[in-house]
C-alpha cells in the first residue's frame, strides 16, 4: 500500500510539472490555433536563465524563476512580433514550420554559446530536501513546483475567465473579425497571449534547475508531453490540460512501476492514442 501511495504521489507531482509546462502551450494553441514547436526550447532557455543567475549572482531559483518568466515573456512576445504575426491568415502549416525553425535556432544557439555541458545548480534553498509522511517520502522541490503550478494555472484561468482582458482573449479566440468589430485590438491580444504563454513556461523552466541538469536538449521530452497534455485535455481548455497532465503523470508512474519502467512512455502515448480515437476533441474539448 505504501508503495502504491508513493508511486501515486510521484505521478501526481510529475503531472503538476507537466501541467505547468503545458498551460502556456494550451493558451497559445487555444487562442491562436498556433502549435508552438519552440515550447520545449522556452523551457530550456528559462532553465539557463535561472542557472546563470544562480551560478553567477547566487540568486536562488525560487527568486530567479520570475526572471525566467519575464525573459520568456519577452521572448514569446518577440516570437509573435517577428515570426508568428506574418503567418496569421496563412495555412496552419506555415506557423508550425516557422516555430520548428525557431526551435532549431534556439537549441543550436544554446549549444554554441553554452556548450552541451550538463549544468547542475547546487546549494539551492530547496536543495534535495525531503520529508517523511509515514512511510511516504515527499520531495520538497517537486512539492513546491506542484503548488506553484496550481497557483499559476489558477491565475491564468482567473485571468481568462474573470478579467476584461480575458474576455477579450476569449472573444478573439472565438471570432477574430467580430472581436475587431467590437474594438478589440486583436494584434495586441495575440502578442500578450504569446507573452503570457511564454511566461508560464518560463516560470516552470525557472524552478526546474533545482532538481534537473540543464543542457540544450532538456526541453525536448517536456515539449512532447506538453503537446499530449494539451491535445488530451482539449485544445485551449486550461482545466483540461491540468487534468490530462495529472493523468499522464499518474499513468506514467503506475505503468513504470507495475508493468515495467521502459513501458511508462508507451502507456502514456497509448493512452493518448486511445483518447484521440475515442474523443478526438479531448477530455474538455468542445
Amino acid at each position, binding site marked *: 500500500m505504501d*508503495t502504491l501511495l*508513493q*508511486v501515486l504521489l*510521484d*505521478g501526481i507531482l*510529475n503531472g503538476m*510539472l*507537466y501541467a505547468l509546462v503545458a498551460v502556456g502551450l494550451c493558451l497559445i494553441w487555444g487562442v491562436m490555433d498556433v502549435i508552438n514547436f519552440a515550447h520545449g526550447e522556452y523551457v530550456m532557455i528559462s532553465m539557463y536563465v535561472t542557472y546563470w543567475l544562480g551560478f553567477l549572482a547566487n540568486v536562488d531559483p525560487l527568486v530567479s524563476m520570475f526572471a525566467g518568466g519575464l525573459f520568456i515573456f519577452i521572448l514569446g512576445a518577440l516570437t509573435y512580433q517577428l515570426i508568428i504575426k506574418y503567418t496569421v491568415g496563412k495555412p496552419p502549416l506555415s506557423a508550425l514550420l516557422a516555430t520548428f525553425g525557431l526551435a532549431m535556432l534556439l*537549441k*543550436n544557439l544554446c*549549444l554554441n554559446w553554452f*556548450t*552541451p*555541458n*550538463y*549544468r*547542475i545548480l*547546487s546549494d539551492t534553498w530547496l536543495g*534535495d530536501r*525531503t520529508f517523511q509522511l509515514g512511510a511516504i*517520502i515527499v*520531495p520538497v522541490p517537486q512539492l513546491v513546483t506542484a503548488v506553484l503550478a496550481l497557483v499559476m494555472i489558477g491565475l491564468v484561468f482567473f485571468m481568462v475567465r474573470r478579467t476584461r482582458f480575458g474576455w477579450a482573449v476569449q472573444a478573439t479566440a472565438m471570432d477574430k473579425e467580430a472581436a475587431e468589430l467590437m474594438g478589440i485590438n486583436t494584434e495586441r491580444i495575440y502578442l500578450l497571449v504569446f507573452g503570457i504563454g511564454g511566461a508560464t513556461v518560463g516560470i516552470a523552466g525557472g524552478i526546474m534547475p533545482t*532538481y*534537473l*541538469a540543464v*543542457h*540544450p*536538449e*532538456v526541453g*525536448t*521530452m*517536456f515539449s512532447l*508531453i506538453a503537446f499530449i497534455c494539451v491535445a488530451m485535455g482539449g485544445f485551449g481548455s486550461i482545466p483540461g490540460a491540468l487534468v490530462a497532465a495529472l493523468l499522464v503523470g499518474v499513468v*506514467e*508512474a503506475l*505503468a*513504470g*512501476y507495475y508493468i*515495467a*519502467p*521502459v513501458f*511508462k*512512455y508507451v502507456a502514456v502515448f497509448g493512452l493518448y492514442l486511445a483518447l484521440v480515437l475515442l474523443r478526438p476533441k479531448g477530455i474538455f474539448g468542445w
Partner: protein
Amino acid sequence: MRFWIVAAVAVTLMLGAAPGQSLAQSQEKVIKIGTIFPLTGPVALAGQRCKAAVETAVEIINNKHPNIKVPLANQAGLLGGYKIVLVHADSQGKPDVGKAEAERLINQEGVWALIGAYNSSVSGPASLVAERAKKIFMCGASSAASLTQRKEMKYFFRTASTDEIESQEFVEVLEWLNKTQKNANIKTLGIIYENSVFGKNAAQQAMKAAAGKFQVVADVPFNPGATNLDSEIQTLKGKNPDALFGAVLGADYALMVKTMKKMNWVPKVSLNYCSGYQDPVIAKQLGPDANYFMGSTAYSPEFQSMMPAVAEVEKIFKSKTGGVPYDSDSIQETIAMLVLAQAIEKSKSLDPTVVAETLHANTWPSPLSLSGKVAFVPGGQNKYALSLITQLQGGKYKKIFPVEKADTKPVFPIPPWDKR
C-alpha cells in the same frame, strides 16, 4: 552601367581564379579522414569531446612536438609530407543519420578513412558502410562487444575496452568485495541501462558475467532523455539488490543519482559503464552526491603518474575543450587516430587494404593507453584494452581494483544518504 560591367568582369575573373586555387589545394599531400560523432543531441557533450580528441591527435601528427612523448610527435606529417585533414560529420546520436553521414563522407567528401562514432548504435551501421567501401573505420569509444564479434570485418578496429570485458571485471570486483570486506554478503544484482544498443549490450553482458555467481533480481531499462527516473529507481528500491550495474550516460546519470537521493536508497555497491560516471564534469557538478559510486576508468587525471605522456597531450586537448581534461572515452579517440597514423607510416602506403593488414599484423606503442600498447585480434578488438575500477572519493577517481594497481581502499558499503 559601366561600373556594373567592370564589377561583373572583376567577379568573373575572381571566380575564374578559384579553380586554379582548388587545383593547387588538391595537389597538396593530404589524407582526408572523416569523423562521425554526436555533435548535437542528448550526448553532444561526449561527441564534442571525442571530436576535440581526434583534432588533438591530428595536431600532433601534422606538426613537430619534441616535448610530447608519443610516436610521430617528433616529425611533421606522414609519408614524407602528407598532412591529415579532418572532415567532421554530426550523427546526432542517431544510427540512420550516422550511416547517411558515413556514405556522404566516403562518396562525396572522398575521405580515406573514418573515425567514430561514440554511440555503439551508430558505429555498427556506419562501419558497415566503410567495410563495403573498403575504408578503414577506427572506433575509439563504442563499447558494445558485438561490434568486434563480427569476425568477417577486415577494416574495423576498436581501441577501447568492451562491455563484455568490463562486465567480467565488475563481477570480479563483487567477488573480491565478498572475500575482503566484512559482512559484504553480496548476492543479488540489479541492472539499470538505457534502452539503446549500448545499454542492451551492457545488460546482456552483465547477465552473462553474473550467471551462476549473482542472482539478477532487477532488470531496468529506461528511455534516454526521460523527464524523470522515478519508476526506475522505485523499482530498484523495491527489489533492493545488493549491487547495481549501470549503463547510464550523460544527464541521465546525474538524474539517476539525484533520484536515488530523493528516494533515499543506495545499493551496497554501484558499478557503472562509460561516460556518465566517467565524465569529470558530471562528477564535479554532482558534488558530494557523486561520491562512493564506482566504475571502469581507462583514464582520469589521477592516473597521470602511470601515464606520464598524457600531460603534454592533454594541454592541447584542454585548449579545445575550455579546460576540461580527457575522460576514458575521449582519450580513446586520440589513441585510435595515433595508431592509424603509425600504421600509415609503417606500411608506407595509402592503400587501405595494406594499412588494415599492417594494423592487424603489429603491436603498436601507445603511451596514452593504460597498458602502453595496442594490438588487434580478428574482428578488430584491441586485445590490450585495459581499464581500472575506480571509486569517486572526495570528488577524485581513486583506483581500487585490481589490488596491485590500487591507491586506496574502497568505501564499502556506500553510506546511506542521511549518514554522509
